[in-house]
C-alpha cells in the first residue's frame, strides 16, 4: 500500500503543482518556478525511491477501480521502461524549470507558463506509468492539449497560434486513431490491463484485427513522434518559448510515440508488416530530417529537423524487432534526451544573449561566450556520434545492427542508407557547432552583444552535457544496468547482458562510422555550394500543403452542410417526415404479419361516436381554417376538450384533469401570442406544394393510425403497472397511483422535470425581456394593432365575473392539491388551475392592475419550489434513507378525523410552486410584451424619449 500511495502521489504531484501555480497566478515569478521546481524535485525523489523495486523485476503497481464496466481502471505501474522515462521527464523537467526561470522575459505570464508546463509534465508522467491502455489514452490526449497551450504560449504571435493549432491537429488526429487502435487491441487481447496485454502478444498477432490495430496504433505513434510524412508540425512548434522546445522535443512529447512503440513491442513487433512499416518509416524520416536540417538557418529549426531525424533512427531501431536493436534504441533515448535538451537550451541562451537565432548572422561566438560554446559543442559532438561521447556508442550499436535486416531482400541496402543518414547527422551537427561558435563573426551587431549568461542559466545545459560526456566515458557504470533492465522490459524477456564500450575493435560498424564522420566533414567543407543547390531546387512546402488541405476540407464541409442542412424549416420537416414515412412503409411491407390482432375490443357507445365525429370535424376545421386565427383557437380547444373527455372515460381521471387545465393555459397563451400576429396572413404555398404536402400528411396519418390500430388490437407485454398498484399504498402512502408515481416512485424524474420547467420559464422571461431593445424592440415599436380595440378595454361584466371566479378557482386548486395523494389531483394540476385563475385576471383587468396586486414574484416561486423539492429529498438523506425517499404516517386530531401526513406532500408543494411560477412567468411575460408594444405604439407620436424610459422602467419593474 505504501508503494500504491507513492505511485498516486507521483502522478498527482504535477497536477497539484499546476493547480497551485494557477491559484497564486498573480504572485512573483519565483513563487511559480519554486512550486514547479519543488514538485519536480519531489517527483524525482519519489521515482528514485522506487528505483530498486522497479528495476529488480517486480514492478510496483497499484489499481483503483474507475469504470469497471469499460475495463477502465486507474492502474499505475512502474516497470523499468516507465521508470527510465519518468526519470527523464522529471529530471529534465526540473532542469527546464530552472532554465525557464531565467529565460522568460520580464512581464511574461509566468503563472500560465509554469502551470501549463506542470500540466504537461503530469500528462507525460501519466503516459509512462499508466498500467491500463485506456488510462494511457486519457493521458495521451492530455499531452496533446497541454502541448497546445505550451506551444501557443506567446498568444500574440500568429506563428505561435498557427504552430499550436497544427501540432494539435496532427497529434490530436493521431490520438483519435490511437484510441481506435487501443480499443481494438483491448478487444483482441481480452483485457485493457497493460500487464495482461503484454503477455498476450501471440493472441494479438494471430487476431484478424491485428492489421487494423497495427495501422491505427502506428498512426498515433508516428504523428506524435513526428515521423515522415507527419513531421511538419514539429518545426512549426518551434514558435514555442525555447524551454518548452527543450522539454517537448528532447525527453517528452515526441518521445511519447517512441515510448508507446517500445511499450507495445512484445505485442506488436516481430511480424513482417511491423518490421517493414516501422523500419522504413524510421529510415525515411531519419534521412529526410537530417537532410533538411543541414540546410536550415534558424537554430531551433535545425534542432527541430535533427530531432525528427533522431526520432526516425529510434523508430527504425524499434522496427528491427531485434533485442540488440531495442537495446541500442534505449541507450539512444537517454543520449538524445541529454544532448538535445542541452542543445535547445544553448540555442535559447544564444538567442537570449545575441537577439537572433539565424545562424547566417552568427559565428565565432566561442570568443564571446566560451562557456556556452563548450557546452553546445560537446553536445553537438555527441549528436554527431563522435567519440568519446555517449552518442558515439549508440550510433555504433545502431550501425552494427543494420546488416542483420535485409530490407527489400538486399542485405546491403539498410547499412548503406543508415550510413547516409549518419553522414548527414554528422554534417548538420558539425555545421551547427562550427558555424555558430567558430570561424569569423558573420555580422558585427549580434556578436558585439554576445556574452555568457549567468551560471543559473547555463547550469542546466552544462549538467546535461556533462551527462552526455559521462555516458561515453563510463557507459558501463552509468548506463549499462539501466539499459539492460529497460531492454528486458521492452522485449518482455529477461534483461540481456549489456556490453557498452567506446572501442569494439575494427568491425563493420566502426568502418561505417568512420565513413560517416568523413562524409560529414566533407559536407561541412562543401556546405556553401550544397546550400546554393538546395535553395535553387523548388521543394514542396509541407506547411502550405497542410493548410491547403485544411482549406479544401473546410470549404467542402461547408458546401455539404449548406446542401444537406437548408435553412428552411419547411424543407427540413418535409425531408424528415418523408424519410420517416418511407421507413415505416418499408417496415410494414417487409415485416410480415397481420394488421389486426386478436385482443377483445371494447364496443363504442353512441356519445363516444358523437365525440369522435366532433373531433374529426374540428381537426378538419383547424386545417382548413388555419388562416382565420381566432376561430381556429376555438376549434383546437374543441379537440383538447374531447381528448380530455376521452381520458376521463377511459379510466384516466388524472390525465383528464391535467389535459383540461393545460388546455386552458394553452389557449390563453395562444390568445396572448395572437395579439401580436397578423390576423389574416397572406397565402404562401403554391397549389402543387399543398397537394404534395397533403399526400404526405395523408400517408403519415394512415400509417400512424394503422400502427395505433395494430397496437390496440393486441395484448400488451408484461407491464410494471402491477408493481405500482401493489406498492402505492403500503410503500408510498397514497391510493392515487399516478400521484404516488410522480412524487415517490419516480420523484427523481419529477424533480428534474420541474427544474427544466423552471428553466424554460426563466428562458422565456429572458428572451422576451430583451426583446424590448435592439432590432426586435424596434420591430415591436413599429407594430400596429390590426383590429380596432373595443372602447371599453376591460368590460365590466368580464372583470366582475373574473373576480368572483378567482376565490372559487383558488379553492378548487387547493382542493385538488390536498387530495392529490389519494384521489385525482396533485401539485401539477393544482398549479395549472391556480395559474389559470390568475391569468384570467390578467385578461379581464389588464396586466398592470393585476400585476400591482399580485402578492408574489414568479422568480421566487420557481426558486422556492425547486428548493423545497430538493430539501424534501435531502431530508430523507439526513434521516439515513436514499435521496427522495418519502415518509408518511397517520395522525388523528380531535374534531377532525384521522388524517395522513406525508413528506410527499411537501415535495408536491415544491412541484406546485415551480409549475405555478414557470407558467405565470411565461404567460405574464407574453401578456406584458403585448402591453408594452401597445403602449409604445400609443406613445410613439408623443415623445420617443419618454417611451424608451417607460420601456426601461417596465423592464426593471419585472
Amino acid at each position, binding site marked *: 500500500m505504501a508503494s500504491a500511495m507513492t505511485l498516486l502521489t507521483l502522478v498527482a504531484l504535477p497536477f497539484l503543482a499546476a493547480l497551485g501555480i494557477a491559484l497564486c497566478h498573480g504572485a512573483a515569478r519565483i513563487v511559480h518556478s519554486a512550486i514547479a521546481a519543488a514538485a519536480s524535485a519531489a517527483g524525482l525523489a519519489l521515482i528514485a525511491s522506487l528505483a530498486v523495486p522497479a528495476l529488480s523485476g517486480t514492478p510496483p503497481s497499484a489499481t483503483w477501480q474507475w469504470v469497471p464496466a469499460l475495463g477502465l481502471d486507474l492502474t499505475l505501474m512502474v516497470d523499468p521502461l516507465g521508470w527510465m522515462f519518468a526519470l527523464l521527464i522529471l529530471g529534465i523537467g526540473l532542469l527546464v524549470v530552472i532554465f525557464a526561470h531565467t529565460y522568460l522575459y520580464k512581464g511574461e505570464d509566468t503563472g500560465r507558463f509554469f502551470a501549463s508546463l506542470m500540466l504537461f509534465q503530469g500528462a507525460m508522467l501519466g503516459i509512462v506509468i499508466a498500467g491500463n491502455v485506456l488510462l494511457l489514452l486519457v493521458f495521451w490526449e492530455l499531452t496533446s492539449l497541454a502541448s497546445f497551450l505550451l506551444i501557443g504560449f506567446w498568444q500574440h504571435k500568429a506563428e505561435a497560434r498557427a504552430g499550436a493549432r497544427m501540432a494539435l491537429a496532427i497529434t490530436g488526429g493521431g490520438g483519435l486513431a490511437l484510441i481506435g487502435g487501443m480499443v481494438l487491441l483491448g478487444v483482441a487481447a481480452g483485457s485493457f490491463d497493460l500487464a495482461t496485454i503484454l503477455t498476450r502478444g501471440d493472441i494479438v498477432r494471430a487476431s484478424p484485427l491485428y492489421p487494423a490495430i497495427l495501422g491505427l496504433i502506428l498512426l498515433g505513434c508516428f504523428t506524435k513522434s513526428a515521423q515522415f510524412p507527419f513531421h511538419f508540425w514539429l518545426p512549426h512548434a518551434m514558435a514555442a518559448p525555447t524551454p518548452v522546445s527543450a522539454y517537448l522535443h528532447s525527453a517528452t512529447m515526441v518521445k511519447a510515440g517512441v515510448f508507446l512503440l517500445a511499450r507495445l513491442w512484445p505485442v506488436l513487433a516481430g511480424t513482417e508488416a511491423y518490421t517493414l512499416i516501422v523500419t522504413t518509416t524510421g529510415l525515411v524520416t531519419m534521412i529526410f530530417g537530417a537532410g533538411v536540417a543541414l540546410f536550415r538557418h534558424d537554430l531551433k529549426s535545425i534542432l527541430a529537423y535533427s530531432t525528427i531525424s533522431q526520432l526516425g533512427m529510434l523508430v527504425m531501431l524499434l522496427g528491427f524487432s531485434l533485442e540488440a536493436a531495442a537495446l541500442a534504441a534505449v541507450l539512444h533515448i537517454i543520449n538524445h534526451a541529454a544532448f538535445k535538451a542541452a542543445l535547445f537550451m544553448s540555442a535559447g541562451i544564444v538567442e537570449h544573449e545575441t537577439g537572433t537565432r539565424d545562424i547566417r548572422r552568427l559565428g565565432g561566438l566561442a570568443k564571446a561566450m566560451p562557456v556556452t560554446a563548450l557546452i553546445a559543442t560537446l553536445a553537438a559532438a555527441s549528436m554527431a556520434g563522435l567519440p568519446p561521447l555517449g552518442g558515439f556508442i549508440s550510433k555504433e550499436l545502431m550501425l552494427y545492427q543494420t546488416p542483420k535486416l535485409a530490407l527489400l531482400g538486399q542485405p546491403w541496402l539498410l547499412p548503406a542508407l543508415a550510413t547516409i543518414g549518419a553522414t548527414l547527422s554528422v554534417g548538420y551537427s558539425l555545421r551547427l557547432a562550427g558555424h555558430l561558435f567558430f570561424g569569423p563573426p558573420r555580422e558585427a551587431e549580434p556578436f558585439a552583444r554576445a556574452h555568457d549568461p549567468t551560471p543559473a542559466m547555463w547550469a542546466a545545459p552544462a549538467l546535461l552535457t556533462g551527462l552526455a560526456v559521462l555516458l561515453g566515458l563510463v557507459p558501463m557504470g552509468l548506463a549499462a544496468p539501466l539499459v539492460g533492465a529497460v531492454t528486458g522490459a521492452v522485449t518482455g524477456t529477461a534483461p540481456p547482458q549489456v556490453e557498452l564500450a567506446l572501442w569494439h575493435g575494427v568491425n563493420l560498424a566502426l568502418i561505417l562510422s568512420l565513413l560517416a564522420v568523413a562524409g560529414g566533414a566533407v559536407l561541412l567543407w562543401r556546405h556553401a555550394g550544397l546550400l546554393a543547390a538546395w535553395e535553387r531546387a523548388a521543394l514542396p512546402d509541407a506547411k502550405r500543403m497542410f493548410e491547403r488541405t485544411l482549406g479544401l476540407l473546410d470549404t467542402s464541409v461547408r458546401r455539404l452542410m449548406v446542401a444537406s442542412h437548408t435553412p428552411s424549416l419547411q424543407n427540413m420537416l418535409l425531408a424528415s417526415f418523408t424519410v420517416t414515412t418511407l421507413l415505416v412503409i418499408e417496415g410494414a411491407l417487409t415485416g410480415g404479419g397481420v394488421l389486426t390482432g386478436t385482443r377483445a*375490443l371494447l364496443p363504442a357507445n353512441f356519445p363516444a361516436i358523437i365525440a369522435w365525429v366532433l373531433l374529426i370535424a374540428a381537426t378538419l376545421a383547424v386545417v382548413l381554417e388555419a*388562416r382565420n386565427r381566432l376561430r381556429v383557437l376555438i376549434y383546437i380547444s374543441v379537440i383538447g376538450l374531447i381528448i380530455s373527455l376521452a381520458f376521463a372515460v*377511459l379510466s384516466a381521471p388524472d390525465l383528464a384533469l391535467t389535459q383540461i387545465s393545460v388546455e386552458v393555459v394553452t389557449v390563453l397563451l395562444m390568445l396572448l401570442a395572437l395579439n401580436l400576429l397578423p390576423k389574416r396572413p397572406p397565402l404562401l404555398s403554391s397549389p402543387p406544394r399543398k397537394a404534395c404536402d397533403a399526400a404526405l400528411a395523408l400517408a403519415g*396519418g394512415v400509417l400512424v393510425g394503422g400502427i395505433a390500430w395494430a397496437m390496440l388490437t393486441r395484448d400488451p407485454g408484461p407491464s410494471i403497472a402491477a408493481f405500482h398498484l401493489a406498492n*402505492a399504498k403500503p410503500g408510498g402512502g397514497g391510493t392515487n397511483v399516478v400521484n404516488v408515481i410522480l412524487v415517490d416512485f419516480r420523484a427523481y424524474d419529477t424533480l428534474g422535470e420541474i427544474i427544466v420547467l423552471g428553466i424554460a420559464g426563466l428562458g422565456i422571461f429572458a428572451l422576451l425581456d430583451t426583446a424590448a431593445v435592439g432590432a426586435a424592440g424596434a420591430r415591436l415599436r413599429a407594430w400596429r394593432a390590426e383590429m380596432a380595440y373595443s372602447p371599453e378595454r376591460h368590460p365590466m361584466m368580464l372583470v366582475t365575473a373574473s373576480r368572483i371566479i378567482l376565490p372559487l378557482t383558488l379553492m378548487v386548486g387547493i382542493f385538488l392539491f390536498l387530495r392529490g395523494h389519494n384521489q385525482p389531483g396533485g401539485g401539477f394540476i393544482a398549479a395549472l388551475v391556480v395559474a389559470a385563475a390568475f391569468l384570467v385576471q390578467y385578461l379581464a383587468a389588464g396586466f398592470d392592475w393585476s400585476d400591482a396586486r399580485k402578492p408574489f414574484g414568479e422568480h421566487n416561486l420557481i426558486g422556492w419550489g425547486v428548493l423545497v423539492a430538493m430539501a424534501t429529498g435531502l431530508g430523507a438523506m439526513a434521516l439515513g434513507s436514499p435521496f427522495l425517499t418519502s415518509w408518511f404516517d397517520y395522525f388523528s386530531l380531535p374534531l377532525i378525523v384521522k388524517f395522513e401526513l406525508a413528506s410527499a406532500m411537501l415535495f408536491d408543494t415544491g412541484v406546485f410552486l415551480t409549475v405555478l411560477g414557470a407558467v405565470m412567468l411565461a404567460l405574464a411575460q407574453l401578456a406584458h410584451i403585448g402591453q408594452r408594444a401597445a403602449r409604445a405604439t400609443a406613445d410613439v407620436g408623443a415623445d420617443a424619449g419618454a417611451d424608451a424610459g417607460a420601456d426601461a422602467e417596465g423592464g426593471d419593474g419585472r
Partner: protein
Amino acid sequence: MTFEFLIASAIGVLVAGGIYLALRARTFQVVLGLTLISYAVNLFLFASGRLMLESHDKPRTRRSANTPIPCRRRWC
C-alpha cells in the same frame, strides 16, 4: 364501431392534420400543427397501456391502473 377503432382513427387524423400544418410556411400554422401532433402523441402513449372503460363496481385504486407513466410528460 369499437373504442379501439375510434382512438386509432383519431390518432391518424390528428397526425395527418398536424403534418400538413407543420409543413406550412407560417409560424402560427406550424404551432397549430405541432399542437395537433402532440395531441396525437399523447393519445398514442396513453393508448399503449390499452383501453379500459371506467367501471364503478371496482375499487377506487383501479381507476388509474391504465395510466402509462410517460403521459405526464406532455409539457416537454
